[in-house]
């Protein structure tokens, strides 16, 4: 491959990886921002999304149907988690939900293995997505481009939701001063629950999007959870703009490192995180809210 071809390839792969990371970590961020719950089961919800997508396709539906349905499945599971596990802990210190969701992660991973087994699964894609397309000097898999477009659509929808809708306004307000939101006549608990479900749906969406890229297996959420923590730390907890910059940055660093020094790729990512923690503790844009 020539230099230009390699460059285009690296850029596209970075965007795909960064995009998946972005959707997962924005979900984590929204859940934390509104509920002050650091959801350690987030990676497992991501895996659940991938498995739900796999199963929906396996029973005969189109991949795009799975892309719509799997997040809803994960959202319903998220609602059940909130109602049964998070609700009783709301008045307590964050450490309770931290440990609770840590346990939930193992329970969910166990259930994934129980229902789907430990072997790696492949989501069956429509014929056209299995082709490659020539982009100038590069021949690139169509499914990666479709996923890139899917990621862009999700991010655009999310920005519209947060920026333009009533729920988005309520969420942005309640992430800073929930008490004042309720004083304005809004059921702030409802806003918090919606944010929890939305965050879970984003994890699920990322899972179906990532399934064809990284394959589907029960522990797929672990690495993604750690990587999304890295994104959240670099971007600053609670900062959407920071998360976008950080996800792309991590995507690029990891992709570049994988290309040049494969074995040290994740090492580079963590060194980047360590540098940011030391020099920009509130995230790369300085917008983080640690409490």
């Amino acid at each position, binding site marked *: 491959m020539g230099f230009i071809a390699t460059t285009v390839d690296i850029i596209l792969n970075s965007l795909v990886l960064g995009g998946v990371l972005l959707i997962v970590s924005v979900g984590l961020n929204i859940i934390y921002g509104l509920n002050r719950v650091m959801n350690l089961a987030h990676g497992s919800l991501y895996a659940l999304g991938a498995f739900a997508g796999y199963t929906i396709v396996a029973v005969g539906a189109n991949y795009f149907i799975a892309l719509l349905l799997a997040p809803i499945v994960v959202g319903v599971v998220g609602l059940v988690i909130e109602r049964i596990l998070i609700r009783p802990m709301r008045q307590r210190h964050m450490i309770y939900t931290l440990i609770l969701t840590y346990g939930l992660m193992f329970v969910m991973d166990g259930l994934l293995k129980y229902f789907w087994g430990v072997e790696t699964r492949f989501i069956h894609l429509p014929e056209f997505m299995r082709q490659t397309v020539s982009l100038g000097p590069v021949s690139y898999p169509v499914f990666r481009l479709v996923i890139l477009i899917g990621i862009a659509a999700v991010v655009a929808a999310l920005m519209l939701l947060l920026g333009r809708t*009533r729920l988005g*306004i*309520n969420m*942005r*307000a309640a*992430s*800073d*001063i929930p*008490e*004042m*939101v*309720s*004083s*304005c*006549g*809004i*059921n*702030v*608990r409802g806003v918090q629950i919606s944010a929890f479900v939305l965050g879970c749906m984003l994890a699920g969406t990322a899972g179906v999007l990532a399934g064809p890229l990284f394959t589907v297996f029960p522990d797929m959420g672990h690495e993604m959870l750690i990587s999304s923590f890295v994104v959240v730390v670099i971007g600053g907890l609670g900062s959407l703009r920071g998360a976008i910059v950080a996800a792309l940055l991590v995507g690029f660093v990891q992709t570049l490192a994988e290309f040049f020094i494969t074995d040290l790729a994740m090492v580079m990512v963590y060194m980047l995180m360590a540098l940011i923690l030391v020099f920009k503790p509130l995230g790369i844009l300085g917008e983080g809210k640690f409490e």
Partner: protein
Amino acid sequence: MIKLENIDTYYGSSHVIQDLSLEVEAGAAVSILGRNGVGKTTTLRSIMGLTPPKDGRVLIGDEEVAGWAPHKIARLGVAYVPAERHIFPALSVEENLKLAEANAEREGAWTLERVYEYFPVLGERRRSGGTKLSGGEQQMLAIGRALMGNPSIMLLDEPSQGLSPILVAKVAQIVSELCKEYGITLLLVEQNFRIALAMAERHYLMGTKSKIQGEVSSQEIIDDQELIKRTLAI
């Protein structure tokens, strides 16, 4: 109408409000005067449901609201303007106002346009971030946001905090006029008796542990300048 009957409110483990009773009749403007830390803010928070009283009754009109969620109390037509303003930093000026509009289920005429008529500066800066405004503008935004809920009762906590005397006078005048014009019941909490005089006609003098030391009219304060000093040591 607001009526508190023997309420007890705790902030954490400290018993801030002890056996407090007071009443504000519909359409009246009443202040609670007292030093820092006597429980003035907690009184308003008890009414709003933000720190619900452990004991006693809170009446808003005919409803007994002690223990209700704050948003349900707000929907009865109670608006709260905290001393810190609590402007939402992630929202623009206009979004700060819109947020309060949506969930006002009562019939009423407050719209963005009308708030901008009263506070033109908010209209000019409608796209700015809420907390990018100056202190005085933020106070106006907090009041405008309260109006967007079409309140019949306004709870106003120390409007003078952090504002210059000229701005305070202006804010006091606007709020008083608004409340009179629209029949909004005003319960004001202040340390500064001049502002209380400018905005309210009747005053509760509150001492430590929320103990009501007296109830006086504006005229009585004007006639006896030492009254406030004697009772409250302000």
